[in-house]
């Protein structure tokens, strides 16, 4: 393969790029013309598929966020009536007052939508698809067709879930964890009926989507890297997406198995998860099953799932932070190995969700140990982010602000994780708002911040325009203050024993003293929701009216995606794929602002970053090179 000319000179506009031009010189026109449906609907271009995941993810985020506003209204003003609720929810909120049944349905849907559809598909689906081929130097995924299938499985799964919102008995309402026996007995509650079947079908389809996508991500990273793209020259984003995909591939199939067993219990009378049980005074046929078994199977996915959510955000933050600090990421290999450590540990901590289930205390102590061990790789990452910022030339654009906000939230939420990881404390706190505060901050908000950082940062690559920064700043600062305003007080609620999953606190003397605090939380939530609608507006406004990108590499970044044309076509690079000669974090080095990965090493220069070269201007210097 020939060494590369500097592709930074080529600027293309909506070109359909292809690898080999030679053979269709005499071919007729139309050979590469795609019609609208092939180009934008059933597209096999990883960039279009990434954007499709983003659009659908955003739509779901609005739905899921709105649901949380609805049930927050109920918690803050249990006696008031809100006509808007009736307008949205019809007879589920007759007279503007949310029914108890539907309160649980809303909470269940909020969790399901946010965890699976927004923070799994919308985050990992968007950025793994968009960035992996661009950053490892591939024309597309290993199997573009399977990639397309992955997105349409997500659409199908979404349709089933959406449909379940409109059926007479309402959607599933037993929590996003779908614990039996509530989820296994159609007669147990309204939401355990058809809604639960649809929930299981939707999740099964979603697992197929994740598997097809993950298969592609792993195969692409291993097999499709461009010349010179060694593993340790991959950006941390790619590392994060790679391990995220592995976690998904190994944990989701177990949930699939659990869903199938549950569906057999529901439809065909088996007793995998059901033991001798009475419903409405009537003894059921079921005998000999174990509901705890479902919890094991569920959390074997469920815990890795939180790392499926957070790892892509970590990768994005690492990349964004390095670019906008104009500094190499501190401890690149430590970052890689801490992702690996988190990946391994994520599979052996699931029972810390089950300390309350009568788990043997000796077994619990082992899970406590592994859980607390996760603090080690997490702390390494936090340390490395902070040291990357240290003495950097920081650009405080919205992407960078959200990356820094991510670190703040990850610390705040992570610390409470150390408390909850101890079984002795967890038994006290598990069913309180303390846990709600913990996981919303550490995986919900932090992952959202990572996603925002990624959207602001790669928007120019996605659409060839910039997002509006002023709206971006408003979005960030209000969201940051609002995030803490919503979830910080919940720690206090939890410590004083306020339980999760309650519909109405006003009837409890010991909890109704917090009525004002609940109002405060709800108001903060509404403000944050509103400002995120502003973000959505900014996003769509900027697609059409944003300032146009005029240079190939607006941030002065080193990675390969910025060597593609401003509007890359299917195939990404015009002509040959650039080869890679160095790691992706050569910033402020050898007296230069940055050195792209495509630039050959100078005489005597080594691509080795383990020995002090993480400090600015301390690399194995080749003065005057270039």
């Amino acid at each position, binding site marked *: 393969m020939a060494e590369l000319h500097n592709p930074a000179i080529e600027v293309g506009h909506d070109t359909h790029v292809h690898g080999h031009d030679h053979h269709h010189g005499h071919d007729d026109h139309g050979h590469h013309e795609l019609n609208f449906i092939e180009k934008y609907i059933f597209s096999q271009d990883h960039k279009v598929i990434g954007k499709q995941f983003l659009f659908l993810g955003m739509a779901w985020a609005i739905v899921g966020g709105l649901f949380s506003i609805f049930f927050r209204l109920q918690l803050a003003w249990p006696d008031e009536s809100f006509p808007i609720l009736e307008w949205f929810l019809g007879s589920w909120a007759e007279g503007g007052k949310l029914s108890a049944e539907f309160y649980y349905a809303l909470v269940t849907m909020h969790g399901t939508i946010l965890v699976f559809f927004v923070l799994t598909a919308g985050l990992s689906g968007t950025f793994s698809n968009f960035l992996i081929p661009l950053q490892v130097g591939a024309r597309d995924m290993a199997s573009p067709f399977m990639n397309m299938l992955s997105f349409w499985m997500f659409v199908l799964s979404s349709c089933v879930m959406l449909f379940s919102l409109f059926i007479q008995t309402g959607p599933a309402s037993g929590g996003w964890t779908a614990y039996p026996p509530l989820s296994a007995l159609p007669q147990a509650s309204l939401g355990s009926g058809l809604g639960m079947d649809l929930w299981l079908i939707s999740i099964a389809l979603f697992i197929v989507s994740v*598997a097809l996508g993950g298969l*592609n991500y792993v195969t692409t990273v291993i097999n499709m890297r461009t010349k010179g793209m060694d593993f340790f020259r991959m950006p941390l984003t790619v590392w994060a997406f790679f391990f995220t995909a592995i976690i998904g591939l190994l*944990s989701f*199939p177990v949930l*699939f198995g659990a869903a199938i067993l549950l569906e*057999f219990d529901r439809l065909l009378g088996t007793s*995998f998860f059901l033991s001798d049980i009475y419903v409405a005074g009537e003894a059921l046929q079921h005998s000999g099953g174990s509901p705890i078994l479902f919890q*094991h199977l569920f959390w*074997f996915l469920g815990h890795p799932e939180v790392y499926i959510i957070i790892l892509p955000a970590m990768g994005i933050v690492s990349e964004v932070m390095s670019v906008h600090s104009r500094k190499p990421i501190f401890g690149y290999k430590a970052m890689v190995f801490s992702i690996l450590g988190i990946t391994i540990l994520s599979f052996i901590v699931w029972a810390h969700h089950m300390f309350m289930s009568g788990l043997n205390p000796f077994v619990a102590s082992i899970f406590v140990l592994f859980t607390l061990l996760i603090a080690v790789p997490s702390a390494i990452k936090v340390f490395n982010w902070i040291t990357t910022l240290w003495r950097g030339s920081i650009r405080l654009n919205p992407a960078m602000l959200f990356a820094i906000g991510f670190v703040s939230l990850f610390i705040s939420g992570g610390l409470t994780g150390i408390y909850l990881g101890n079984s002795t404390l967890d038994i006290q706190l598990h069913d309180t708002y303390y846990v709600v505060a913990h996981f919303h901050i550490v995986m919900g908000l932090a992952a959202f911040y990572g996603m925002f950082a990624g959207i602001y940062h790669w928007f120019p690559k996605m659409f060839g325009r910039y997002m509006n920064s002023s709206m971006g700043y408003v979005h960030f600062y209000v969201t940051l203050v609002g995030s803490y305003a919503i979830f910080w007080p919940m720690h206090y609620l939890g410590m004083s024993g306020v339980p999760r999953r309650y519909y109405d606190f006003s009837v409890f003397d010991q909890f109704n003293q917090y009525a004002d605090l609940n109002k405060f939380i709800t108001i903060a939530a509404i403000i944050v929701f509103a400002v995120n609608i502003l973000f959505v507006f900014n996003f769509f406004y900027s697609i059409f009216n944003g300032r146009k990108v005029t240079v190939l590499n607006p941030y002065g970044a080193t990675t390969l995606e910025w060597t593609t044309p401003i509007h890359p076509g299917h*195939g990404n690079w015009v002509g040959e794929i650039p080869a890679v000669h160095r790691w992706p974090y050569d910033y402020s080095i050898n007296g230069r602002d940055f050195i792209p990965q495509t630039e050959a090493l100078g005489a005597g220069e080594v691509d080795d970053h383990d020995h002090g070269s993480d400090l600015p201007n301390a690399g194995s210097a080749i003065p005057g090179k270039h």
Partner: protein
Amino acid sequence: MGTLAYKKEILPDNIQPFKVHPQKFALWVGISVLCMAFAGLTSAYLVRKAAPNWQEFIMPTQFILSAVLMMLSSITIQGAVWAFKRDKIALYNATLFISLALGVSFLVSQYLGWMALEQRGVYLNGNPSGSFVYVISYLHVAHVIGGILPMMIALVRSLWLFGDPAKLAAFKTDNNKRVGIELLATYWHFVDILWIYLLLFFMFS
């Protein structure tokens, strides 16, 4: 149309450091996913078995016959791979057909096995020990059918196309189609080994 024409061009100017055909690699990743699914189910079996009220029963011999059929078809499909690489199309068709026939008889044998279980009073909705065997073997059969369908397609395509050496040669130049039979054989060996594992697991765990 455009994308398909484009797709073939993805591979050549990419370097593949591991020198594994991407589709073969993807299949192995897919197989590890299926392994996890069945590992999850069999661990659930073990967890439940450790609890009281677990009914023991003996596996029907039909399940063992199934395993033998599966092993034989693994050998014949490997013969098909061998024949395809050497352009022995008659042998390829024959071995493919025998593999297909053995695959279908596996399904029949499994069905007879389920009948035999019912005759012993082991029902799907009875004690979980039986339910597990039914559900896990159903899932396995679903995966076997997932191998039988492409096997049928391969056979039909062979009868349709490969009589003409020119068409066969053209087929073999396509980097993705060329490996189809190898992918199929790998997958088939997987469902074969999976059933042997499941059977031994049910009999001796």
